[in-house]
């Protein structure tokens, strides 16, 4: 897999096929048994802890349900990395945080606590936090999960606009075929830890590969069977011929 600079790429596949594991490899949370992840000229799993932390400062990640720090306000969540990694004065951090929150449409929520936000709002605040230090790579783990249609469109639109505004590379791990095909540049389909199909959104829509067609159109039966593989049904019911 390659993720060129400035592109927004989706990774799709069934639950448990290894999408999130792939993100964890890119982020250096896991060491691969085989192969490698290379970013900005460096192999991630060969970095020591300091090197890995330096690399992670160039990354941003949006977790499935936001993963906002529940003991901090919205403002402090977005300011977190700025305070940890920079020596910026508090006045500048204040302005930067409000600008990031403004970009996701939530400037006025700066003094709320995460528990006071809806699911969609929490996701947008987490997005503002993920791009706080203008990363070169932004990873999204199921950014559309559990969102209402309006929030879903808003989050999808923000992912595209932020990627373009920052000139970053974005990787979106998702199940949401329709929303992601609207915003991404390229799609990889994974099954059992390997790539089974890839292409631009138009190529994916037109694909006649069984797996892709079943996934994109949400068909019940196909290469991914409805029934979990097992023994003979008649035998399980103790029926004789």
């Amino acid at each position, binding site marked *: 897999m390659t993720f060129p600079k400035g592109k927004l790429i989706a990774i799709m596949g069934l639950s448990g096929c290894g999408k999130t594991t792939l993100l964890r490899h890119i982020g250096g949370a896991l060491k691969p048994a085989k192969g490698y992840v290379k970013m900005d000229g460096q192999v991630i799993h060969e970095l020591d802890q300091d090197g890995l932390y330096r690399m992670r400062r160039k990354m941003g*990640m949006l977790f499935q*349900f936001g*993963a906002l720090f529940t003991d901090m306000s919205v403002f402090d969540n977005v300011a977190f*990395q700025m305070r*940890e990694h920079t020596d910026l004065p508090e006045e500048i951090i204040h302005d930067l945080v409000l600008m990031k929150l403004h970009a996701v449409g939530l400037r006025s929520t700066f003094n709320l606590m995460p528990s006071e936000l809806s699911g969609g709002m929490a996701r947008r605040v987490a997005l503002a936090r993920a791009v706080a230090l203008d990363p070169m790579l932004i990873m999204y783990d199921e950014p559309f999960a559990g969102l209402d249609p309006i929030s879903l469109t808003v989050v999808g639109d923000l992912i595209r606009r932020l990627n373009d505004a920052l000139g970053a590379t974005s990787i979106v791990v998702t199940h949401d075929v329709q929303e992601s095909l609207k915003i991404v540049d390229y799609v990889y389909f994974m099954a059992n830890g390997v790539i089974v199909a890839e292409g631009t959104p138009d190529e994916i829509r037109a694909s006649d590969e069984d797996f892709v067609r079943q996934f994109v159109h949400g068909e019940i039966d196909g290469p991914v069977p409805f029934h979990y593989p097992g023994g003979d049904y008649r035998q399980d019911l103790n029926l004789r011929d």
Partner: protein
Amino acid sequence: MPATKTIKIVGRRTINAVWRIGMAARFFFLTLLYSGSSFRRFHLIIKELFSTGVMSLIIIIVAGLFVGMVLGLQGYETLKRYGSESALGVMVALGLVRELGPVVAALLFASRAGSAMTAEIGLMKATEQISAMEMMAVNPIARIVAPRFWAGVISMPLLAALFSAVGVFGGYFVGVVQIGVDEGSFWSQMQAAVDFREDILNGVIKSFVFGTAVTVIALFEGYDAPPTAEGVSGATTRTVVTSSLVILMLDFVLTAIMFRGN
């Protein structure tokens, strides 16, 4: 083969226990290693001191008062048999500063603050807050664990001292105010018999050791908890049970070392 099965189960549990002890020791070492940033940003420790120390004040004061009152009653009943009611102050004070203050305060601390620490960190893990912090290139042991560890270590001796002080007043209330033991002998004998180094300092050392043990157990259990509701609840229970047993075991060891032959 029930015998083989039993051996297998015992073996697996033993290996698991040894593995967890090793992990906890490594966790403790890393906490000490990454403590520097906590001291550079002392406001993080202050914040945790509030939630572990200040929020435990009520339970410590109320429990200390009642334990002191019970000591006053029981002590008076026993000392009266030997005509030594005037030594009630000494008995209450020594009982509290040497034993009950550090031990009961630590047991309460484990139940109140230790369980809260485990649940908080376990839930942070379950909601991916710890993973998010790691992805932001911030070491969670330095940012989350170390400030809580030092807050626990600092607040435990203070809470134990407060427990003992309130307990002495509880004993005074029952012994002097209610029963009528002579006030002068209550305080003067206490002042004469309680040694700063032998009794008070040893009590402080005990509570410091208990504070360290309880906080490390609570933090490790939270950090190591499976990220599920069941995992966090199990870890919280283990914190209280393990901490209580470790406190009592350490108390015996420390008492044997400190007060042997005195």
